[in-house]
Protein backbone atom coordinates (compact mmCIF):
# COMPACT_ATOMS: atom_id res chain seq x y z
CA UNK A 1 0.00 0.00 0.00
CA UNK A 2 1.43 3.36 -0.93
CA UNK A 3 1.90 5.33 2.21
CA UNK A 4 0.80 8.92 2.43
CA UNK A 5 3.23 11.75 3.01
CA UNK A 6 3.06 12.80 6.63
CA UNK A 7 3.71 16.37 7.52
CA UNK A 8 3.83 17.92 10.94
CA UNK A 9 3.77 21.68 11.35
CA UNK A 10 4.43 23.21 14.76
CA UNK A 11 4.49 26.82 15.80
CA UNK A 12 3.34 29.43 18.27
CA UNK A 13 -0.28 30.52 18.29
CA UNK A 14 0.19 33.48 15.99
CA UNK A 15 2.46 31.86 13.42
CA UNK A 16 -0.30 30.57 11.24
CA UNK A 17 0.67 26.92 10.92
CA UNK A 18 -2.96 25.77 10.88
CA UNK A 19 -3.69 27.87 7.84
CA UNK A 20 -0.70 26.35 6.05
CA UNK A 21 -1.86 22.85 6.93
CA UNK A 22 -5.35 23.54 5.77
CA UNK A 23 -4.20 25.01 2.48
CA UNK A 24 -2.01 22.02 1.72
CA UNK A 25 -4.70 19.50 2.58
CA UNK A 26 -7.38 21.32 0.71
CA UNK A 27 -5.25 21.88 -2.36
CA UNK A 28 -4.36 18.20 -2.43
CA UNK A 29 -8.01 17.30 -2.07
CA UNK A 30 -9.00 19.65 -4.86
CA UNK A 31 -6.45 18.02 -7.05
CA UNK A 32 -8.17 14.70 -6.47
CA UNK A 33 -5.75 13.24 -3.99
CA UNK A 34 -6.61 11.82 -0.60
CA UNK A 35 -5.89 14.21 2.22
CA UNK A 36 -6.46 14.53 5.93
CA UNK A 37 -5.66 17.41 8.22
CA UNK A 38 -6.14 17.69 11.94
CA UNK A 39 -5.03 20.40 14.32
CA UNK A 40 -4.08 19.71 17.88
CA UNK A 41 -6.10 21.46 20.51
CA UNK A 42 -6.25 21.46 24.23
CA UNK A 43 -7.91 23.17 27.10
CA UNK A 44 -6.57 26.67 26.63
CA UNK A 45 -8.02 28.88 23.94
CA UNK A 46 -4.64 30.45 23.38
CA UNK A 47 -1.08 30.21 24.53
CA UNK A 48 -0.09 26.67 23.71
CA UNK A 49 1.98 25.41 20.82
CA UNK A 50 -0.04 24.80 17.73
CA UNK A 51 0.49 21.47 15.95
CA UNK A 52 -0.96 20.49 12.59
CA UNK A 53 -0.95 16.96 11.21
CA UNK A 54 -1.34 16.72 7.46
CA UNK A 55 -1.34 13.61 5.34
CA UNK A 56 -1.59 13.45 1.58
CA UNK A 57 -1.68 10.27 -0.43
CA UNK A 58 -3.41 8.27 -3.10
CA UNK A 59 -5.43 5.93 -0.97
CA UNK A 60 -7.76 6.77 1.87
CA UNK A 61 -5.74 7.99 4.80
CA UNK A 62 -5.46 5.87 7.94
CA UNK A 63 -5.48 7.27 11.45
CA UNK A 64 -5.61 11.06 11.70
CA UNK A 65 -2.47 11.27 13.77
CA UNK A 66 0.71 9.54 12.85
CA UNK A 67 3.58 8.31 14.94
CA UNK A 68 6.39 9.58 12.75
CA UNK A 69 6.38 12.49 10.37
CA UNK A 70 8.12 12.39 7.02
CA UNK A 71 8.55 16.10 7.31
CA UNK A 72 8.38 18.09 10.53
CA UNK A 73 8.63 21.86 10.65
CA UNK A 74 9.07 23.61 13.98
CA UNK A 75 8.99 27.36 14.20
CA UNK A 76 9.80 28.07 17.84
CA UNK A 77 11.76 26.51 20.64
CA UNK A 78 8.62 25.18 22.32
CA UNK A 79 7.48 23.89 18.97
CA UNK A 80 10.68 21.93 18.60
CA UNK A 81 10.02 20.31 21.96
CA UNK A 82 6.42 19.45 21.15
CA UNK A 83 7.39 18.00 17.78
CA UNK A 84 9.94 15.54 19.08
CA UNK A 85 7.57 12.65 19.85
CA UNK A 86 6.61 12.61 16.17
CA UNK A 87 10.11 12.51 14.81
CA UNK A 88 12.05 9.40 13.81
CA UNK A 89 14.99 8.25 11.73
CA UNK A 90 13.06 8.86 8.52
CA UNK A 91 12.08 12.39 9.38
CA UNK A 92 13.30 15.49 7.70
CA UNK A 93 13.28 18.04 10.47
CA UNK A 94 13.13 21.70 9.52
CA UNK A 95 13.44 24.52 12.02
CA UNK A 96 13.81 28.24 11.80
CA UNK A 97 17.40 29.26 12.08
CA UNK A 98 16.61 32.26 14.22
CA UNK A 99 15.22 30.34 17.18
CA UNK A 100 17.71 29.61 19.87
CA UNK A 101 16.96 26.04 20.76
CA UNK A 102 18.82 23.33 22.60
CA UNK A 103 16.17 20.75 21.92
CA UNK A 104 16.84 19.66 18.36
CA UNK A 105 16.13 15.99 17.82
CA UNK A 106 18.96 13.60 17.17
CA UNK A 107 19.12 10.78 14.72
CA UNK A 108 16.73 12.15 12.18
CA UNK A 109 17.21 11.74 8.45
CA UNK A 110 17.99 15.38 7.92
CA UNK A 111 18.12 18.39 10.16
CA UNK A 112 17.70 21.60 8.24
CA UNK A 113 17.70 25.20 9.45
CA UNK A 114 15.94 27.74 7.27
CA UNK A 115 16.02 31.49 7.85
CA UNK A 116 12.30 31.87 7.25
CA UNK A 117 11.57 34.38 9.98
CA UNK A 118 14.44 36.58 8.92
CA UNK A 119 13.70 36.41 5.21
CA UNK A 120 10.02 37.07 5.69
CA UNK A 121 10.81 40.09 7.84
CA UNK A 122 13.49 41.49 5.63
CA UNK A 123 12.43 40.65 2.12
CA UNK A 124 8.69 40.32 2.34
CA UNK A 125 6.41 41.03 5.29
CA UNK A 126 6.00 39.19 8.61
CA UNK A 127 2.36 38.53 7.80
CA UNK A 128 3.24 36.21 4.94
CA UNK A 129 5.68 34.27 7.05
CA UNK A 130 3.40 31.26 7.04
CA UNK A 131 2.95 31.41 3.29
CA UNK A 132 6.69 31.10 2.97
CA UNK A 133 6.52 28.05 5.17
CA UNK A 134 3.90 26.71 2.83
CA UNK A 135 6.36 27.20 0.02
CA UNK A 136 9.02 25.38 1.98
CA UNK A 137 6.74 22.38 2.54
CA UNK A 138 5.93 22.25 -1.15
CA UNK A 139 9.53 22.52 -2.03
CA UNK A 140 10.46 19.64 0.21
CA UNK A 141 7.57 17.28 -0.43
CA UNK A 142 5.99 18.14 -3.71
CA UNK A 143 2.59 17.16 -2.30
CA UNK A 144 1.12 20.00 -4.29
CA UNK A 145 2.54 22.24 -6.95
CA UNK A 146 3.23 25.92 -6.60
CA UNK A 147 0.36 26.56 -8.95
CA UNK A 148 -2.03 24.55 -6.84
CA UNK A 149 -0.88 26.38 -3.76
CA UNK A 150 -1.57 29.68 -5.44
CA UNK A 151 -5.03 28.55 -6.40
CA UNK A 152 -5.72 27.45 -2.85
CA UNK A 153 -4.55 30.84 -1.59
CA UNK A 154 -6.80 32.46 -4.12
CA UNK A 155 -9.81 30.52 -2.81
CA UNK A 156 -9.07 31.66 0.71
CA UNK A 157 -8.02 35.25 0.18
CA UNK A 158 -9.33 36.09 -3.23
CA UNK A 159 -11.88 38.52 -1.84
CA UNK A 160 -9.08 40.43 -0.16
CA UNK A 161 -6.88 40.38 -3.22
CA UNK A 162 -9.68 42.05 -5.17
CA UNK A 163 -9.25 45.12 -3.06
CA UNK A 164 -5.49 44.92 -2.82
CA UNK A 165 -3.82 43.17 -5.77
CA UNK A 166 -0.40 43.89 -4.28
CA UNK A 167 -1.30 41.46 -1.55
CA UNK A 168 -1.72 38.69 -4.10
CA UNK A 169 1.67 39.51 -5.47
CA UNK A 170 3.17 39.38 -1.97
CA UNK A 171 1.66 35.99 -1.28
CA UNK A 172 2.85 34.55 -4.54
CA UNK A 173 6.34 35.81 -3.90
CA UNK A 174 6.22 34.27 -0.44
CA UNK A 175 5.35 30.82 -1.76
CA UNK A 176 8.07 30.98 -4.32
CA UNK A 177 10.61 32.29 -1.86
CA UNK A 178 9.70 29.43 0.46
CA UNK A 179 10.37 26.89 -2.27
CA UNK A 180 13.69 28.53 -2.98
CA UNK A 181 14.68 28.55 0.65
CA UNK A 182 14.73 24.78 0.79
CA UNK A 183 16.00 24.13 -2.67
CA UNK A 184 18.92 21.78 -2.49
CA UNK A 185 18.41 21.15 1.16
CA UNK A 186 17.36 17.59 0.64
Amino acid at each position, binding site marked *: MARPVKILLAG*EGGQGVQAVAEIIAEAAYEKGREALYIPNFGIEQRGGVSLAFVQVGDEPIGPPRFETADLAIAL*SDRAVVRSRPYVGPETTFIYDSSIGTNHLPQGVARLVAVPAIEVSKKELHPRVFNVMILGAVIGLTGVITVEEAKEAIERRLGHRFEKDPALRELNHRAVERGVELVKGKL
Partner: protein
Amino acid sequence: MAEYHGITVETEKGTHTVFPELCKGCGLCIAKCPKKTLTWADYLGAYGTPSVRVTNGCNACGTCQMVCPDCAIVVVRKAKAR
Protein backbone atom coordinates in the same frame (compact mmCIF):
# COMPACT_ATOMS: atom_id res chain seq x y z
CA MET B 1 10.94 32.64 43.60
CA ALA B 2 11.68 33.54 40.04
CA GLU B 3 13.33 36.87 39.44
CA TYR B 4 11.84 39.01 36.71
CA HIS B 5 13.71 41.32 34.44
CA GLY B 6 11.84 44.54 34.07
CA ILE B 7 12.59 47.35 31.72
CA THR B 8 12.39 50.48 33.77
CA VAL B 9 11.91 53.94 32.36
CA GLU B 10 12.29 57.03 34.52
CA THR B 11 9.39 59.33 33.90
CA GLU B 12 8.77 62.82 35.10
CA LYS B 13 6.55 61.63 37.91
CA GLY B 14 8.32 58.36 38.80
CA THR B 15 9.35 55.12 37.18
CA HIS B 16 7.53 52.90 34.79
CA THR B 17 8.60 49.26 34.55
CA VAL B 18 7.45 46.66 32.05
CA PHE B 19 8.17 42.96 32.42
CA PRO B 20 8.22 41.51 28.93
CA GLU B 21 8.29 37.94 30.29
CA LEU B 22 4.85 38.59 31.69
CA CYS B 23 3.43 40.85 29.02
CA LYS B 24 1.17 39.14 26.51
CA GLY B 25 0.76 42.21 24.36
CA CYS B 26 -2.95 42.56 24.84
CA GLY B 27 -2.83 46.33 24.66
CA LEU B 28 -5.34 46.90 27.43
CA CYS B 29 -2.90 49.24 29.14
CA ILE B 30 -2.33 51.24 26.00
CA ALA B 31 -6.02 51.66 25.40
CA LYS B 32 -6.74 52.59 28.99
CA CYS B 33 -3.89 55.02 29.65
CA PRO B 34 -5.50 58.38 30.25
CA LYS B 35 -2.48 60.20 28.90
CA LYS B 36 -2.08 57.96 25.83
CA THR B 37 1.58 57.67 26.68
CA LEU B 38 1.90 53.92 26.22
CA THR B 39 2.86 52.43 22.92
CA TRP B 40 4.04 49.18 21.39
CA ALA B 41 7.63 48.31 22.10
CA ASP B 42 10.11 46.63 19.83
CA TYR B 43 10.97 44.05 22.45
CA LEU B 44 8.74 41.03 22.47
CA GLY B 45 6.55 39.74 25.22
CA ALA B 46 5.78 36.30 26.55
CA TYR B 47 4.13 35.04 23.38
CA GLY B 48 6.58 36.57 20.96
CA THR B 49 4.31 39.48 20.21
CA PRO B 50 5.29 43.09 20.84
CA SER B 51 5.28 44.28 24.42
CA VAL B 52 4.67 47.87 25.50
CA ARG B 53 6.73 50.84 26.61
CA VAL B 54 6.01 54.21 28.11
CA THR B 55 6.66 57.44 26.24
CA ASN B 56 6.66 61.01 27.38
CA GLY B 57 3.83 62.38 29.41
CA CYS B 58 3.18 59.61 31.89
CA ASN B 59 1.66 61.01 35.03
CA ALA B 60 2.31 57.85 37.05
CA CYS B 61 -1.38 57.43 37.66
CA GLY B 62 -0.96 53.66 37.82
CA THR B 63 -3.95 52.87 35.65
CA CYS B 64 -1.87 50.71 33.33
CA GLN B 65 -0.56 48.70 36.24
CA MET B 66 -4.02 48.32 37.66
CA VAL B 67 -5.64 47.01 34.51
CA CYS B 68 -2.85 44.76 33.35
CA PRO B 69 -4.18 41.24 33.72
CA ASP B 70 -0.67 39.86 33.88
CA CYS B 71 0.98 42.14 36.44
CA ALA B 72 3.45 43.10 33.74
CA ILE B 73 3.68 46.78 34.70
CA VAL B 74 4.81 48.50 37.86
CA VAL B 75 4.47 52.23 38.21
CA VAL B 76 6.23 53.92 41.06
CA ARG B 77 5.30 57.46 41.84
CA LYS B 78 8.00 59.74 43.19
CA ALA B 79 7.33 60.59 46.78
CA LYS B 80 5.56 63.94 46.64
CA ALA B 81 6.99 65.71 49.65
CA ARG B 82 10.57 65.05 48.69
